[in-house]
């Protein structure tokens, strides 16, 4: 197999490194012409040349999801597993932004948490533009720092699930990582100092914290204090971001719980339909009569054939309809104590076709959803959460 991993490659995150790219995407890459033509027999050195030729990033695009060259090269790196020094050189180089991005992506996939933060965070100061191919084949403009931010904070990038890494503040708390120092921090400090020089002793400052600072005046501990304040401020920001994520997570959980409740809802719906049936009884009466005639007629035919057909009739029901009803049917049957054959005797199947007819009837009438149907309410809730208009 030409696409097998280098036998000397170490396993990463417990598997073959190539498995870090999802199976479907991987097979798309193996099929792509860029992979076959350009990536054949690449080594760590020749791969650099190919990486220098890159002119956009992105995952897969187009109707049949062709992989971008960027993704092909990333998979190639996973396959041949270049040394860490080489990857670090990729990231450190200043001239080729796509080489840098490729290195960063690879390191994010394979590196340890400490390495990821150590080597990727300096790239937050790289504001160069990069082109990114979207899944519909159009290009969009991003920047290297945005891409890095995506790698560090999201769990999915370029159609690839990124391995989980701890949040920054977790690592800071455990001492693995120093608090991050933004490149803007010096600017902030200078600015603040300028401000203070302008208005040296203003007591009726509206901002409480500022006032506090001023009260303390020019004590020798002041500088250190301010440093700490900076640090805290910075870390607060990180916490905020994390909390945001937590909230998202919570929402996901809630939705799960909703789904758990589905059982209840189904029961509600059943009850609802029963009510409808009662209400619509006289309305469907002549249909009943029709059906009675049907049954009678069929009964006669059965008798003519001299064969019991009560079971086989329910079998030979129109298949599509049965598919539709199947779930509910089975559920209802499961709840009722009657066995399938028992039902046939106690008049169960009589209800069955009637309900189905009703359903069909409802669909025929302009397909207006019943606004009180719990299923519709649920669906509309879901649609609202996805930002769509309610069902018409």
């Amino acid at each position: 197999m030409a696409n097998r991993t280098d036998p000397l490659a170490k396993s990463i995150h417990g598997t073959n490194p190539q498995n870090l790219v999802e199976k479907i995407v991987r097979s798309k890459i193996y099929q792509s012409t860029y992979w076959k033509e350009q990536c054949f027999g690449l080594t760590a050195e020749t791969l650099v040349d190919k990486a220098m030729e890159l002119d956009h990033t992105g995952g897969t695009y187009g109707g049949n999801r062709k992989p971008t060259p960027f993704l092909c090269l990333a998979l190639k790196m996973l396959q041949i597993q270049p040394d860490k020094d080489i990857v670090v050189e990729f990231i450190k180089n200043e001239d080729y932004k796509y080489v840098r991005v490729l290195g960063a992506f690879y390191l994010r996939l394979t590196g340890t948490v400490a390495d990821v933060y150590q080597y990727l965070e300096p790239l937050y100061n790289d504001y160069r533009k990069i082109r990114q191919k979207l899944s519909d084949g159009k290009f969009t403009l991003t920047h290297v720092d945005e891409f890095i931010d995506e790698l560090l904070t999201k769990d999915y990038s370029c159609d690839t699930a990124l391995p989980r890494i701890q949040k920054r503040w977790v690592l800071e708390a455990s001492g693995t990582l120093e608090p991050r120092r933004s490149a803007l921090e010096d600017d902030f400090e200078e600015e603040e100092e300028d401000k203070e020089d302008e208005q040296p002793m203003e007591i009726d400052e509206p901002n409480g914290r500022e006032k506090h600072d001023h009260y303390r005046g020019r004590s020798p501990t002041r500088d250190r204090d301010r440093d700490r304040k900076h640090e805290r401020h910075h870390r607060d920001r990180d916490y905020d971001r994390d909390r945001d994520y937590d909230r998202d997570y919570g929402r996901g959980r809630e939705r799960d719980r909703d789904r758990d409740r589905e059982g209840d809802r189904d029961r509600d719906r059943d009850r609802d339909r029963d009510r409808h049936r009662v209400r619509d009884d006289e309305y469907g009466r002549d249909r009943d009569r029709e059906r009675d005639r049907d049954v009678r007629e069929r009964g006669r035919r059965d008798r003519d054939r001299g064969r019991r057909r009560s079971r086989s009739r329910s079998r030979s029901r129109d298949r599509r309809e049965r598919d539709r009803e199947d779930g509910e049917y089975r559920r209802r049957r499961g709840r009722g104590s009657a066995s399938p054959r028992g039902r046939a005797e106690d008049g169960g199947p009589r209800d069955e076709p009637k309900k189905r007819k009703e359903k069909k009837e409802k669909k025929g009438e302009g397909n207006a959803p019943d606004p009180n149907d719990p299923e519709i309410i649920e669906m509309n809730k879901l649609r609202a959460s996805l930002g769509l208009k309610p069902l018409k």
Partner: protein
Amino acid sequence: MIEVVLNDRLGKKVRVKCNEDDTIGDLKKLVAAQTGTRADKIRIQKWYNIYKDHITLADYEIHDGMGLELYYD
């Protein structure tokens, strides 16, 4: 409102209620919410026509009860 059936022929068959003026992209989101597969990993097609995200169901003449093919990528 219409209801369409999406079948991946691998054991997943979902019925989705939607509007006719929903786009395929919206439909994918609804399917994603029902099945748990990411919306951008879903491909909806009919025979060899891969449906595009920005086109509405009405434009593809998708009607009530119609079946679509569900693929993943």
